[in-house]
């Protein structure tokens, strides 16, 4: 062991000393020493090694770098590569996007027809759908205006809407627009040649070949007359007495000769027919050279466009009963959910219509939705009364808020509820003016007069036709009691209250007083003493009697005013006036309302 220490390797201490100072300064890494000491020498060595090992491949790599792969080779892998990339992530699509967009733009600019032709089958239906949706929305608002009109005709249309499952508004439009499609042409666009046509049996038939040609000529004329002005293709031509509706496709067009004003639906049907024909006979259209036989298969479809007119006119076809039976049969046959959903919609339409014209209701909802919100006056008829069986059929979630309707029918109901008039009273409403008539107690009249102005929907009240039965009774009685006479015995100063006539007269006064009091009035009683013929002028006696009556009245709770002592009128001596006290009776009543 010592030997080995004593004979150390020559280079070793050097090596150690060379390494020693470095050890602390470098991190204790396993970095190879040759890497720490690079030199041109080493690089060259590596290059030599590389060329020895992969020499021939380097050449090929260089070749590949300078010459891109041959298209044939790329073609075999490209499809696969694209597929993999597409299924992996969207990077490829993103990378290709700008080029594709640019390509499309260029194509659209250079060759718009081809592009249009390519996308027409896709865009055509989509565009029509959106137009139809917009139209439906506008029909919906029309609905509201029409729903309120009820006439025998309106009810018939409503029935038809129910039967056919169409919105009511559409049925109305269908009937109110009178039109007739007389002829339909399918025209090859470029040549203007008639591919096929159909015509209703009408007088003065126009030659379809000529019409097609002329239409094409007009179309050509318009197209290059207004090309710059953004004028696209004609949609309609009006010629005295009729109009020509046009549906334009890429290779062909449909034209319909129509009398009257056609509904929008006709244009839509035409476009749809044209699309389907162009799809079906696209090849024949592409290679068209005047041979029109292949297009004869379109005849049935073209005739279908004529069909609409007969129904609109209601002239041709089955009688209404037969039609009804046929429809009923169809309904039975259909059976399934279609019918029930149509039923549902039509019963909702009916319910809406019923609620819209029912006083005290304001409803928001439509046939397609099952949540309806509405305002309901508490005095309106209950829902089940308004809707009857419909209530169970509409399957709607109701959400009601209370409100006060000023519909006359409801205002009148409200007046009745608030005023509670007796049977003898009638209430009427004319332009928010409440007319009160008949016979009522004063108490009711007074209460009514106080309450009526606060009733919503009533602007003013007319009481002139109301007779106040209490007032009337008081006035009658006080008139009959006025001048009432309480007799006294001759020379007697005492009122004999046991005498039946005295008793009855005092009772009558008391009763009248009660009535007047109840009415809020005051009964005024005036006393005058009348001396008998043979009593000469005995003032003392007269006063005695007055006091006697006054105290008798006071006992009954009546106040009175003593007027005077009246001597027996001399002239009445012949008649023989009886001694006693005369009562003047007057009811002082508050002013009528």
């Amino acid at each position: 062991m010592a030997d080995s220490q004593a004979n150390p390797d020559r280079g070793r201490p050097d090596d150690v000393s060379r390494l020693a100072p470095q050890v602390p300064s470098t991190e204790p890494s396993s970095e190879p020493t040759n890497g720490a000491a690079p030199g041109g020498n080493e690089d060259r060595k590596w290059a030599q090694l590389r060329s020895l090992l992969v020499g021939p491949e380097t050449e090929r790599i260089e070749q590949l770098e300078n010459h891109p792969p041959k298209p044939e080779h790329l073609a075999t892998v490209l499809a696969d590569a694209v597929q993999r990339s597409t299924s992996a992530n969207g990077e490829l699509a993103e990378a290709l996007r700008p080029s594709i967009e640019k390509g499309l733009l260029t194509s659209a600019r250079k060759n718009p027809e081809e592009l249009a032709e390519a996308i027409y089958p896709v865009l055509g239906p989509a565009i029509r759908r959106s137009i139809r949706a917009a139209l439906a929305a506008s029909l919906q608002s029309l609905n509201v205006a029409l729903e309120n009109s009820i006439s025998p005709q309106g009810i018939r249309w409503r029935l038809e809407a129910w039967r056919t499952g169409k919105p009511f508004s559409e049925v109305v439009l269908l009937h109110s627009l009178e039109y007739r499609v007389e002829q339909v042409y399918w025209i090859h666009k470029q040549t203007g040649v008639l591919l096929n046509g159909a015509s209703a049996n009408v007088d003065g038939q126009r030659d379809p070949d000529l019409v097609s040609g002329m239409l094409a000529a007009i179309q050509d004329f318009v197209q290059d007359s207004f090309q710059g002005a953004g004028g696209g293709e004609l949609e309609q031509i009006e010629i005295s007495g009729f109009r020509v509706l046009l549906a334009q496709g890429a290779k062909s067009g449909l034209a319909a000769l129509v009398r009257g004003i056609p509904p929008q639906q006709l244009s839509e049907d035409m476009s749809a027919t044209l699309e389907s024909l162009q799809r079906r006979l696209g090849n024949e259209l592409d290679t068209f050279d005047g041979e029109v036989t292949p297009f004869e298969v379109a005849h049935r479809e073209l005739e279908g466009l004529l069909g609409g007119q007969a129904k609109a006119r209601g002239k041709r076809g089955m009688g209404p009963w037969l039609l009804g039976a046929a429809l009923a049969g169809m309904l039975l046959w259909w059976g399934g959910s279609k019918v029930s959903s149509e039923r549902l919609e039509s019963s909702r339409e009916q319910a809406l219509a019923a609620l819209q014209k029912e006083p005290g209701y304001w409803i928001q909802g439509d046939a397609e939705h099952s949540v309806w919100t509405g305002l309901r006056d508490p005095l309106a008829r209950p829902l089940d009364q308004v809707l009857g069986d419909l209530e169970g059929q509409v399957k709607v979630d109701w959400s009601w808020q209370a409100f006060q309707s000023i519909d006359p029918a409801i205002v009148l109901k409200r007046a009745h509820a608030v005023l509670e008039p007796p049977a003898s009273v009638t209430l009427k409403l004319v332009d928010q003016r409440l007319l009160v008539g008949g016979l009522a107690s004063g108490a009711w009249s007074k209460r009514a007069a106080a309450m009526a102005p606060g009733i919503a929907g009533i602007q003013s009240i007319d009481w002139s036709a109301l007779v106040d039965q209490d007032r009337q009774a008081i006035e009658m009685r006080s008139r009959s009691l006025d001048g009432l006479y309480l007799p006294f015995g001759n020379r007697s100063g005492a009122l004999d209250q046991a005498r039946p006539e005295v008793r009855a007269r005092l009772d009558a006064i008391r009763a009248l007083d009660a009535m007047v009091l109840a009415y809020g009035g005051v009964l005024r009683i005036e006393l005058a003493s009348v001396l008998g013929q043979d009593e000469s002028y005995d003032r003392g006696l007269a006063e005695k009697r007055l006091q006697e009556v006054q105290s008798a009245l006071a006992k009954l709770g009546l106040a009175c005013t003593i007027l005077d002592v009246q001597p027996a009128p001399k002239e009445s001596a012949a008649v023989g006036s009886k001694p006693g006290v005369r009562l003047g009776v007057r009811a002082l009543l508050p002013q009528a309302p």
Partner: protein
Amino acid sequence: MIRKKVCLLGSFAVGKTSLVRRFLHSEFSDRYQTTVGVKVDKKELEIDGQAITLVIWDLYGEDRWQEVRGSYLRGASGGFLVADATRLETLDVVRGLAQRLREQDPDIHLQVVVNKVDLRDGLAIPLAEWRARIDWAPLTFTSAKTGEGVEQAFDALARACLSPR
């Protein structure tokens, strides 16, 4: 059933409308009513047992101020070019139109007619000279007034339209 569009073209007043009337209705009138725009007519013919409907577009005549619209010519199988035997300048118009038609569709069938040949004394150049100058297309001498050559000319064009291109 075959339908073909043919266009009648030529300078104004050469007799295009008169030729159509003669061909369709065997009528003639001395009155001149210039055609405004297009008048479309048709004639059903039978050529070698094959039914064909010629849809004839009678166009307004070209003059110094108005050229026939290109769009009217689109899709035509045949061009019926009319010159007036009494007016040599109508030949230039026919030549120009033939060129335009061929540019638009190199396969179009052309038929040239020199009309009003009944006016023997008024011929601009002798008929032989007309024939010599029109050696680039089938030519027929016609008179809408007498009916001479009219049917033959239309028949020839219809036949050409039926032949494969």
